[in-house]
């Protein structure tokens, strides 16, 4: 088809790989689909910009009044499309609403767990108190969106919306697509792209052909081998940025073999990450350092080197642990969730075979995989690439602690303690120190198999000015045309 760059675009189509689940953050789970829509139609107090910096959205400024209190000053004049004002009372009402639904399936409940109360002091001031000191609160609230209270009481918030953000929803068809159009009443700068279609295209091949033919202007989660095909397409800009998801294999320590640190270390040694990142990932990423935090997190780089590949050592350790004659393990991999995982898994399998570990792969649908991670039937090894809503290191680290239900078997108490201390730290430095302790504890314990950060692969129409984010959000307001 004709090169799309010829004309200035004001309408684009973005491919999303999974269906939308809900317009209410109480129920919405997926950051890329649901999170992208919510962030476009609703406002939040703060926001992470495309460079990963925390900036204001509703809030003009925010200060910690004391260790337990944060005060946010709101921009005046923000309204919903029906004209009603988005003021401090609305913010307070929404935070209370989230607190009232602690069991909600959405990830947001996690964000307000530590919040004791939110009060509107006046129309433009919100005070949020926390149960423990929480220096990350301004970052956490970046993932909270605010509904119009009266409207919310009379509408199905899962399927309908009343926008206050740069876009409003023209059509919402969760299985098919969401069409966003610029919100004329938006109080900030009008977005460049007036109409954005977020289309559900779950088949990778279809995504690819859509990108090639120009039907789709942007696509993500593209396997590196497929990315090569797209490189030759003139209308597309392709590439990868580091994402916030470090790929790891989590151990199920209920398996006695894996409760043995030597075995965990052996597995780390037995994997030649360098070979894999160079071939399967086409050099888009480098092997991960021995930590689950990616470069997007505060606290990253506290340990400086990747786990080395040393087959001999791996064999020795296994023999030492009593598995000289081999070990049978199962690896559970989600389908279509992580870039390159399904291709890399068989390579891991053959590399581990060298060390005498017979790995059985179970590649299942994302939901099935996820379901299993919570149960006692979790596989010996589970492929993970976790990220939290707002790129808060302490939140991410919590996912690997004893309190988390995806953790099977006992991990060192010291880790939990360090994470808890980091959470409750009242200064950044104190927090970073605790994070370092936690990360080191984990690395020393061969907590997980450290693989590589997921490359945030993308292919976008070259006529679009768009800084691709490392987290999953697709915010069309950040796009402009050349």
């Amino acid at each position, binding site marked *: 088809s004709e090169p799309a760059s010829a004309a200035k675009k004001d309408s684009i189509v973005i491919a999303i790989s999974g269906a939308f689940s809900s317009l209410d953050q109480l129920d919405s789970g997926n950051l890329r689909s649901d999170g992208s829509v919510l962030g476009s139609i609703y406002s939040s107090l703060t926001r992470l910009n495309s460079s990963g910096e925390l900036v204001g959205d509703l809030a003009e400024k925010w200060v910690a009044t004391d260790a337990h209190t944060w005060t946010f000053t709101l921009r005046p004049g923000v309204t919903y499309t029906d004209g009603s004002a988005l003021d401090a009372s609305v913010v307070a009402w929404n935070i209370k609403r989230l607190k009232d639904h602690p069991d909600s399936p959405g990830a947001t409940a996690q964000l307000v767990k530590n919040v004791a109360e939110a009060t509107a002091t006046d129309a433009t001031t919100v005070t949020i108190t926390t149960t423990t000191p929480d220096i990350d609160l301004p970052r956490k609230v970046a993932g909270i969106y605010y509904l119009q209270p009266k409207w919310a009481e009379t509408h199905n918030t899962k399927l309908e919306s009343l926008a206050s953000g740069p876009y409003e929803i023209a059509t919402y068809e969760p299985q098919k697509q969401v069409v966003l159009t610029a919100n004329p009443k938006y109080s900030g700068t009008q977005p460049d792209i007036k109409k954005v279609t977020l289309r559900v295209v779950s*088949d*990778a*091949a279809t995504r*690819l*052909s859509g990108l*090639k033919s120009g039907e789709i202007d942007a696509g993500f989660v593209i*396997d590196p*081998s*497929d990315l*090569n*095909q797209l490189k030759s397409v003139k209308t597309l800009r392709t590439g990868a940025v580091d994402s916030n998801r470090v790929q790891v294999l989590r151990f199920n320590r209920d398996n006695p073999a894996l409760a043995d640190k030597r075995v965990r270390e052996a597995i780390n040694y037995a994997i030649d990450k360098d*070979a*894999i990142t160079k*071939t*399967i990932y086409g050099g888009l990423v480098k092997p991960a350092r021995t930590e689950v935090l990616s470069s997007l997190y505060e606290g990253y780089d506290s340990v400086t080197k990747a786990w080395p590949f040393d087959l001999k050592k791996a064999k020795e350790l296994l023999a030492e642990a009593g598995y000289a004659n081999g070990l049978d393990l199962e690896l559970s991999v989600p*389908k279509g969730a992580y870039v390159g995982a*399904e*291709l890399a*898994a*068989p*390579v891991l*399998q*053959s590399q581990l075979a060298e060390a005498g570990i017979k790995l059985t*792969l*179970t*590649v*299942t*649908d994302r939901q*099935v995989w996820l379901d299993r991670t919570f149960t006692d039937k979790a596989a010996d090894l589970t492929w993970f690439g976790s990220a939290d809503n707002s790129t808060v290191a302490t939140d991410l680290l919590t996912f690997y602690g004893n309190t988390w239900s995806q953790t099977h078997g006992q991990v060192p108490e010291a880790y939990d303690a360090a994470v808890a201390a980091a959470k409750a730290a009242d200064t950044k430095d104190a927090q970073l120190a605790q994070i370092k302790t936690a990360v080191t504890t984990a690395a020393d314990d061969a907590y997980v198999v450290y693989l590589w950060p997921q490359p945030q692969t993308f292919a976008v129409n070259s006529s679009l000015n768009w800084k691709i984010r490392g987290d999953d959000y697709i915010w069309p307001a950040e796009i402009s045309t050349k």
Partner: protein
Amino acid sequence: MSVGAGLRARGRTAHRSGTTPQLVVGISIVAVVVLGTVLAPLLAPYDPNAVDLGSMLSAPSIDPFHPFGTDQVGRDVLSRVLYGGRAALIVGLFSTLIAVTLGVLFGLLAATGRTVDAVIGRIADIQLSIPGLVLALLALSLFGTTPLGIIIIIGLEWWPMHYRVVRDKIRELTASPFVEASRLGGSGRLRTFGGHILPHLIPVLAVTVTFNVSTAVLAESGLSYLGLGSQPPTANWGLMIAESRTQLGDAWWGPVFPGLALVVFLIGVQMVGDALSRRFAATGRGGVPWI
């Protein structure tokens, strides 16, 4: 006897010779594929799962010996195609076995009485009103994907076909003069059944069975394509197509060769089924039995 009927019967006899080449070609195709699959360990040049990061996505070539090329992680496509028919063939065979067993059993039961027939007929209606793939999807994601599960779920889909055919045939035969004659001649129920009814079911079943095999193979690859069949890294035609489908425009050999293997096998099975059905149509009015 209508004017034409005699002629038609005669006309059909003339056709009989014509069916043989098709049957032979069909059986040969099926045999080649089955042998290739069974003898894969002997024939395959490589271990189907041997990853070779040094030669990813290399085009078909003789030196190095990758006549069908390699896939995204450097596995030899020919070896994988050879091994890849296993699941399809096993599922095809065993699920058909289940379907036929159930179908024949129910068919026999239904021939015993009206009530039984009505009950089984209703069950068949229910079975038929949910498309097999929907049921399979549901069952497999609920109960997990195990090879046995796949065999059972695909097997369940097609029993109504055999059931109807067997039931109708038995009804037709029980009322037929030669069965009555057998009873008049003093043969007991069992003898009449074994001698005059059972043998006639075989040709009808031969046709439904070939049909069932082809649909079961198709269903297995469809499920594997959707990710509910064989799990990676197993070599499996449907799964191979799914895994490499993004490469079709580029490293086309990835999806094309397993696709061709599947299509060729299905054509073979259909040719056999077709030839059989022709053959039996020809024998419909008393041709010389040959099975």
